[in-house]
């Protein structure tokens, strides 16, 4: 996982601006992120019984079955 903390977000905004991209929404997110001190990263694991054994999903971010579709 790559967390987007305020420092990282400032850098992403700077690069996107230089490339001529619209960053207005990201700038609003930056204000909010600074206020909330960012979101804490967490890995996730899910297990489901399978015909033989169990099916496991382990993720450095959210563990979602739909990612594999």
């Amino acid at each position: 996982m790559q967390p987007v903390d305020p420092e990282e977000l400032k850098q992403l905004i700077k690069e996107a601006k230089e490339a001529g991209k619209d960053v207005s929404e990201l700038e609003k997110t930056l204000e909010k992120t600074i206020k909330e001190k960012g979101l804490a990263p967490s890995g996730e694991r899910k297990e489901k019984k399978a015909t033989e054994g169990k099916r496991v999903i382990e993720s450095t971010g959210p563990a979602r079955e739909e990612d594999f579709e």
Partner: protein
Amino acid sequence: MIEVNLIDQAGVLSGPEKKRLKSFIIDHCLCTTEEIPWLKHVKVRDDGASGYSGYWTASWTEDGADIRDLVAVIILNSYYLKTVEQMEKTLAHEFGHHWTLGYFMVRREMRHFFKERAPWLYYRIRGIEPINNFAGDYSKDWYHCDKEILAEDYKHLFSPYKWMHRMRNLVGNPTTEVMDYIKTLGKPYW
């Protein structure tokens, strides 16, 4: 021909950008014909202000000691990543997870990524001390998670995005010993 399957679900990439991102791993990063097929696809998706620009996720079947049907996916969050260079940089880090965690799993060195620390040899050659300041999970934050340091090491050592190690102020840049260690994880058995 071996290739990476790229899905632009967000619809943000032009034809040339899609071609560039699709060939990035094979043309510019350390990879082999063993771990590339484990990667089902790289998905560019708008996950909103989720706090992450990308992640690696894997699925497999455990039957006793047997592990089979390993499939992995990389998600790139186009909400934060506005340029193809930014997507490549995140992809290099996430492919670092694919290389290191994928081989830890297949070579039976690890089964629960976040319950177990990275092997002690890695701690020793990486010089990450005191050991108790670091963890196998995110309990001491992202910067102190050994799997994340490994992924950044991969990005620094084996992709064009060198000198951008996000833990460099904490643990320094990796040495050539670490380079050999990471490369050896994917050493073929044959």
